[in-house]
């Protein structure tokens, strides 16, 4: 056996096997570390995906992503009124926390609303433009402002800064037609078919 080991070709083979094993080991450590990092990052992203992205700050944080980061660090999951029960359920699934009711300190569940500026009253102070987290308001200094309805998240943040109180929140008209359950139609059934 021994002389076989001493041959240069065998040594080369052994060396290459050792090198491959080392390389694999290093690679696996690298992959493990990056995967862990990626998972951590994706937890915040996954929590963020559950949040409604209205950026309203009712949870007490600056926006949805900061709140997602706080949840990942162990904050309560029931601080998001625009998301409602659906968000709490999906967050509970994701974080493995117990289902809890929405914390009323942060607001109540309400139908989706959008902000509308009464344009004839607007004095063009640009205060609402600064407050809007999604740049949904257009207008300039001393010029009338208006809100792009399709962009508005209904966050309510522009209402308070307005010095002339010309912004109001109105319920958004939903485009989709609600399916109304028909009362009798579904009953055409073999059981009830009139006797021949």
């Amino acid at each position, binding site marked *: 056996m021994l002389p076989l080991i001493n041959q240069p070709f065998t040594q080369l083979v052994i060396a290459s096997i050792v090198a491959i094993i080392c390389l694999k080991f290093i690679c696996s450590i690298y992959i493990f570390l990056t995967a862990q990092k990626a998972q951590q990052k994706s937890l915040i992203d996954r929590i963020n995906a559950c949040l409604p992205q209205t950026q309203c700050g009712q949870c007490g944080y600056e926006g949805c992503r900061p709140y997602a980061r706080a949840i990942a660090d162990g904050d309560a999951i029931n601080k998001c009124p625009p998301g409602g029960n659906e968000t709490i359920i999906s967050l509970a699934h994701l974080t493995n926390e117990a289902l809890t009711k929405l914390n009323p300190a942060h607001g109540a569940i309400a139908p989706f609303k959008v902000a509308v500026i009464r344009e004839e009253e607007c004095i063009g102070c640009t205060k609402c433009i600064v407050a809007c987290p999604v740049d949904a308001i257009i207008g300039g200094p001393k010029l009338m402002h208006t809100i792009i309805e399709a962009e508005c998240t209904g966050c309510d943040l522009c209402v308070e800064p307005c010095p002339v109180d010309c912004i109001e929140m109105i319920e958004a008209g939903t485009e989709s037609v609600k399916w109304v359950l028909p009362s009798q139609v*579904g009953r*055409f059934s073999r059981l009830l078919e009139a006797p021949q």
Partner: protein
Amino acid sequence: MSSEAVARIARLKLRPHRIFGGIKPRAYKSSSLRSRILPCPIPDQLILSLRQHQGEAASPVVKVGDMVLKFQLLAEAENDSALNLHAPTSGKITAIAPHAIPGQSGQPELCVFLETDKQDAEIELTALPDYRAMSHLELLDLISQAGICGLGGAGFPSGLKLGDGIEKEIGLLIINAAECEPYITADEALLREFAEEVVSGAEILQKISLAPQCVIAIEKDKQDAIAALKPALRNSSIKLIALSAKYPTGGEKQIIQGVTGLEVPTGGLPQDIGVLVHNAGTAFAVHKAIIFGEPCVSRITTLTGAPLQTPKNFEALIGTPASYLLKICGLDKKQLTGAIVGGSIMGVELKNFDSPLLKTSNCIIAKSAKEFPQQAKEQACIRCGYCANVCPAQLLPQQLYAYSRSNDRLKLQDYGLADCIECGACAYVCPSNIPLVQYYRASKQEIKESMLRERQSEYWQSRFQTHQYRLKKNQEDKLSKRKKKKSAAGTKTENTFSREKARAEIAAAVERVKARKKKLIASTKLDK
């Protein structure tokens, strides 16, 4: 890709194939087939909904008080999914206001109210008996102009469907005359009396869609219609295929399977596998639109049900109120318990009897307590599996039902809720009387809405991110500008602060002043 599909269809042998599942309900068709198709008298008022189908509404081009003639354009389609609307007869526009229409939503739609003058005066039409000389795209444009939609019930704009078919290459055109749902006889009556016109319409559709093959598919038990079609098809390349009679043979995906044996892939359209399906009634409307230039202003509709003394098929004007149609069929109000628009399985309850006839309303059933007894109470699912046997889409309705109740979106998608054609065969055989289709529809709606919400929140997130990026960039810009200003100011002060330079400058200034003084003195001397 699509030419592959065309080649595959060319290789196929077109013959009746087996269709999955299905039920055989009692047909209730004979009573309305006893008489010929009658032209419906013109009612005093027509109510024309601007939304005739599940698409966008058309926008009116007439004003209140206008006098209009038959076939005149009333409302124009502004995009592809809307339909042109034409005046079914002459008269005066009295109002444009919301009114109840038959439909799933039960919501009132904007309608044009036309007070008829019974003169039936027409505008001049351009007839095209020699359409073969025209290009298929010109014909397609004419079809779109005529406001024709799928008259079988779903009402998809025909021009849109044909255009999509031309784009994707079509190997086979199927004219769907199966009409598998109980009570409805509009297509059967149409074929019995207007077989040649339907065949002519099918030839026009074949020319437009450039399909090498065309087939008329019908159920085996419609013998009168088959007997009328055979002579009409003698000089034509169009084939007739008689499928076994069961519900839902007439579903678009089912009839493709019945004729070709192919299945439409999940989330795909028939056009994707090189097949185009049009209803027989649509073919008739296409014939009238091309040969006579008439836009779609009337349709053949079945009036049936036990409370009617003379059930029959009418060629009725679009917009005729349902109550008027029921009245002239001899409605016995004592027996009446309600009415359905559409067939007895997939139709929708008529809530307001003044609702007008739409382009998609193929049947109005007057309900009696005998034929439509009170709904029995829904009971628990006993997992008998009857529903899975009859499902034409080969789904597991009992599983879908369970997941629909537990609101499990992911599982519903896994189990193929999107493939459900809402035919109602499962609910028909259910021994526990569960209105399964209603659960599926509600779940489908919920999934659609939540997907919409997700998309919206993604969009908002991106908006927020760009907003924050903008704020950050503004801040940085401001800081860098301030820095630049500061540095610029700094260099200036440094330059002036060198003492020697200052001294030199002062000395230079003094020199300049001295020189100027000298000059001044010299000039004053000269003056003197």
